[in-house]
């Protein structure tokens, strides 16, 4: 076959190449504005190279927006983000294949220990919050759901619904809290995440902290009981809830779309989700005890807050980075990348386009302090020992 096979192969190759060439000739495909916008990076030394990150899928929308904007200012940087999931993101980071990882759960001790082998100078990796998203309890109920429509529920009611104890929409517990709503005698279909997820963990720990004995399960990344249906990813839950009448599920605020959402009972009032209400809780939460390593900033959400107009059901997602990198370019990139992410502009960008809760100035200042730990001088000059 050698001869003929090769000939056809060469031909096919040529065809494929021609196709690829015409496509890439048409434009390199990148969506960049015509006018070069170099102003913002003019003062600093230029960063260039290709950098990879991987991790939480919850951050995908936000990271994509950040990358788009960041690359407009830094033309020579190419960033790839693979939304593989928090676990895979961290394990890839710990192999040294990616520059940073995004995760919904803070690093555990074992990961911190392992990170010493990949971070230059023997330092351990640290995690800082960069993305906060509200979690909404979304429902689909004919006539009662839709954009900006809300039902009122206290944590105990939510817990009993998600535990299968309340199985009809006209249950007295729901009626009592929504005297004006005309609730039908429809069975409730609970929709939860079927994959391991930070959203599930945050939702469960909210229920555990607030619902008392109505919620007998421990917080974890897996859904603990056999009630209702499971669906993969926040979008899976959102689309499942959207598909049938009488469903209820917990969804990241950015994916809730036009579904109705539940107003949570905080103190004596019912608070609907809003970025401001969520931000209030982030600010009043304390930096966690488990933040053992230098630079680590783990937020322990105050689910039981009684503050006025606070929405305590949310997800804090972190970026994991090293304090020093073997490669000076990578270090410079990570520093400027994280700085951009938590900058006012960066946070506003994802608040507008990815449904995030913008970090407050106080929190941003704390994060910036951690980021300043990243050493951008080349590791060889500081005598790295490994």
């Amino acid at each position: 076959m050698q001869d003929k096979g090769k000939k056809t192969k060469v031909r096919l190759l040529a065809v494929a190449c021609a196709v690829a060439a015409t496509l890439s000739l048409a434009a390199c495909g990148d969506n960049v504005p015509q006018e070069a916008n170099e102003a913002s990076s003019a003062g600093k030394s230029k960063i260039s190279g290709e950098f990879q990150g991987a991790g939480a899928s919850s951050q995908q929308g936000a990271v994509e927006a950040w990358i788009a904007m960041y690359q407009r200012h830094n033309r020579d940087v190419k960033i790839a983000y693979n939304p593989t999931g928090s676990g895979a993101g961290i394990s890839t980071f710990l192999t040294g294949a990616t520059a940073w990882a995004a995760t919904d759960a803070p690093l555990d001790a074992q990961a911190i220990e392992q990170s010493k082998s990949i971070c230059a100078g023997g330092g351990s990796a640290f995690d800082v919050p960069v993305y906060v998203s509200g979690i909404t309890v979304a429902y689909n109920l004919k006539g009662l759901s839709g954009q900006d429509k809300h039902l009122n529920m206290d944590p105990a009611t939510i817990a009993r619904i998600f535990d299968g104890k309340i199985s009809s929409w006209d249950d007295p517990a729901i009626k009592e809290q929504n005297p004006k709503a005309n609730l039908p005698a429809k069975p409730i279909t609970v929709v939860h995440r079927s994959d391991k997820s930070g959203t599930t963990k945050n939702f469960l720990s909210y229920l555990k902290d607030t619902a008392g004995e109505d919620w007998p399960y421990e917080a974890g990344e897996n859904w603990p009981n056999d009630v209702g249906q499971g669906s993969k990813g926040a979008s899976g839950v959102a689309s499942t809830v959207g598909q049938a009448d009488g469903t209820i599920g917990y969804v990241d605020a950015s994916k809730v779309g036009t579904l109705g959402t539940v107003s949570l009972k905080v103190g004596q009032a019912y608070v609907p989700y809003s970025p401001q209400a969520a931000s209030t809780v982030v600010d009043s939460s304390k930096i966690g005890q488990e933040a053992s390593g230098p630079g680590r900033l783990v937020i322990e959400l105050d689910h039981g807050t009684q503050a006025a107009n606070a929405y305590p059901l949310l997800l804090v997602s972190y970026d994991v980075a090293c304090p020093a990198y073997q490669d000076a370019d990578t270090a410079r990139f990570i520093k400027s990348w994280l700085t951009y992410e938590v900058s006012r502009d960066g946070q506003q960008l994802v608040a507008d386009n990815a449904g995030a809760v913008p970090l407050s100035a106080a929190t941003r200042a704390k994060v910036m302090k951690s980021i300043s730990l990243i050493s951008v001088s080349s590791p060889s000059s500081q005598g790295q020992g490994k």
Partner: protein
Amino acid sequence: MSDRRDQRLPGQSQELAVGGVADADKAMPDQARRQAVATAGGGQPNRVQPSGTDDAAPVIDFDKFKPTRSFIAARKRKDLLMRVLVFLAFLMALIPLISVLWTTLAAGIKRLNWNFLTYNMSGVIGGLQTPSGGYGGIEHAIIGTLEVTLGAMVISVPIGLMCAVYLVEYAHGGRLARAISLLVDVMSGIPSIVAGLFAFSMFSIVFGPGTINGFEGSVALSLLMIPTVVKSSEEMLRIVPGDLREAAYALGVTKQRTITKIVLRTALPGIVSGVILAIARVIGETAPLLMTAGFISSTNLNLFSGQMTTLPVYVYQEYSKLTVTCPADGGAGCVSSIPMERAWAAALTLIILVLVLNLIGRLVARVFSVKTER
């Protein structure tokens, strides 16, 4: 058909006869009367017995094999019923298939335009319009798909073809050949996700953990492609007339020259169309590429380094996004349902790609196969 008589002969297919007997027994009352007239006192209705009386030659009464009217009607009814069932099966299958194609077409056509085909997803912010006036596109995914598939082809076509040559030309039904052809059959049933796991494991062991590149995807796909190539090529090589080979040998041509210059050349159109169909099969694979080729929003031309998005993975990723958030102040031209629209448009592109490949394969087979038939 309707006036065809059902005269059965003794030597006919057993099954039919047995069926006939069973049915005839049911129609006993009718028949028994007639038999009583024909064979004096023959107790067994369906067996010809030499009667114990004066007749020397057995009298075969063909009339008693004659089916009753109700029997014929029953058979006709059954025939009609099966006709209807077969037709219903056909209609039933059409419903979902038309629905699949129609949904994809209807939902995909909206965003399928030149901008969508020539831009990638880098620089796309939420549902906002890009500077070029589009909403992001699949240029990078098309390139990724072509490169990964090409990589798979480069691996699997030579191996598959030579394996077929071995099976047809060299191994004359030996034990090894039997084992190989058995394993090729088994291999054609490997689940695509297992192929993905295999490539992932192999690359993480050989090239270090966390290795993800387009070529890894090619390896996974080639595992799925090789058996298809082997089987179609084998079939094509087998139908090359033995006369051609013998004629070549008689002229003193070596076996290698005979195979490359005559056998493969004759079988070429069939082989090419087989390869194209094999490509059409693997080009739509998603699961193995999710874990091997990764996902990236900008264009990556290098198959051997860096992640690569392919069309099916792109479809899945956009489906996973579902919606995007638009700024509260509206944001001119922001489309919050854009991910699903992109997913459908990419799915439509993928289907068109597969259809075109299929058409080419068929065309190659048709145009060039005339030669061998002459």
